[in-house]
């Protein structure tokens, strides 16, 4: 694919790499975690070298995701501050989902939905990390009530996160011209003007 030199740079290589580490670890964690979530998913343990290996590997993958998400959090935090325009966007999100984006307020680099996703994921990541440490018996032995609460929170936050990621991935598939930003960092000017006009004007000066 030949890229237009006038395309807009949306992500630096470092940012893309960071996102990919989070993404890969998330997928591996979701598959291995679901295996222990419900018996219906137990065969997924075969992807990780068997049930015991899955149990061993899952928490280390969790550490990798926690650390790489933390880096991503600090990288993008300043771009995800909620503004009144974001709240307006969120209140009109149904129209957007129905396929009509004509009434949507102008959005900066991220729209209200993306920002909401960012903060929900950040909270879930924190919950997952803390509760994950509570139930990591290979290294820790916390009070039984804490362990039980950890087990509940870990399962609940995990389910919420997987659901959110479905939405995140689908949004990228649905909005054409988005996924390339994750691969090589650029988007077309038309894409930016259509979906993030505030950001388009900021980076093009138009």
């Amino acid at each position: 694919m030949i890229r237009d030199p006038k395309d807009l740079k949306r992500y630096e290589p470092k940012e893309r790499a960071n996102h990919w580490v989070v993404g890969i670890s998330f997928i591996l964690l979701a598959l291995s975690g679901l295996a222990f979530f419900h018996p219906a998913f137990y065969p997924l343990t075969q992807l990780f070298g068997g049930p015991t290996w899955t149990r061993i590997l899952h928490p280390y993958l969790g550490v990798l995701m926690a650390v790489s998400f933390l880096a991503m959090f600090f990288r993008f935090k300043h771009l995800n501050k909620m503004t009144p325009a974001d709240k307006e966007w969120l209140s009109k999100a149904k129209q957007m989902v129905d396929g009509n984006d004509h009434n949507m307020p102008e959005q900066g680099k991220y729209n209200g939905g993306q920002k909401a996703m960012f903060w929900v994921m950040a909270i879930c990541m924190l919950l997952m990390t803390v509760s994950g440490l509570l139930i990591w018996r290979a290294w820790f032995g916390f009070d039984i009530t804490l362990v039980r609460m950890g087990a509940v929170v870990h399962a609940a936050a995990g389910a919420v996160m997987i659901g959110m990621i479905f939405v995140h991935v689908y949004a990228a598939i649905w909005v054409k011209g988005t996924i390339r930003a994750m691969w090589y960092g650029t988007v077309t000017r038309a894409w930016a003007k259509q979906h993030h006009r505030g950001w388009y004007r900021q980076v093009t000066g138009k």
Partner: protein
Amino acid sequence: MALQSLDIKQRSATTTPSTHVRETLEIAKLIDVSACIGCKACQVACSEWNDIRDEVGNCHGVYDNPMDLTAKSWTVMRFTEVEQNNKLEWLIRKDGCMHCADPGCLKACPAPGAIVQYSNGIVDFHQENCIGCGYCVTGCPFDVPRISKEDNKAYKCSLCSDRVAVNQAPACVKACPTGAIQFGSKEDMKDYAAKRVTDLKERGYEQAGLYDPQGVGGTHVMYVLHHADKPNLYAGLPANPSISPLVSLWKGFAKPLATLALAGVALGSLFHYVTKGPNEVSKEIEDEIEKEDAK
């Protein structure tokens, strides 16, 4: 006893019925605390029969030895000194798996077939299926299972399921010199306990009674206690044990519902795409950009 496959009542992480066309007699072990002399013959017999040798520990200045259940000590005597009715009493309780009718360990276990409950009531760990996650410890209301540091598998009393399968009493029962440990059908054990309780009441222990906690559906290891109103006296035996509500929440209906919800999100996304179509850049904006470039 993996080969004893026709009388399994429940199997961990299994959502279809297990083979249980054969109905076996419900059994129980009865530990008469009032007849126990704390000789630890049961501990030794357990170690002998099951071929497990725990590390020789240190003396902690009390009779308890070892101090706690381990992956290699499936039963321990717990000694407590209490004052009741202005008298010193030395309470000795043989601790170990209670073989609950509603086992929290089995409910919590994510590995299919790592924990089974036979229709005779025995809750057995099948280490070959155990993955070492420790969820059984999280689920147990009695703090019984232990994860081995050597192989990361969970261990606990099997109620000598291998012996019971061939009509032998558990090793601890065989070894007990005072008859404080009895074994038989659960009904017979209840009858035996009733006689012991009557005897104890005649001897002044008015609160004597049987410990068969209904919070876990009853147990297949029961105690005769002289102070059945205060099970806590016996080294913290829980008065009303039950599977923690947190464990029930964690392992209950929420997960199948969450699974359905996730499937709903995935299918909803697919059908959204199919019915609404992709969100593409409008022709209008593409033309605007083209005009800019033509300038």
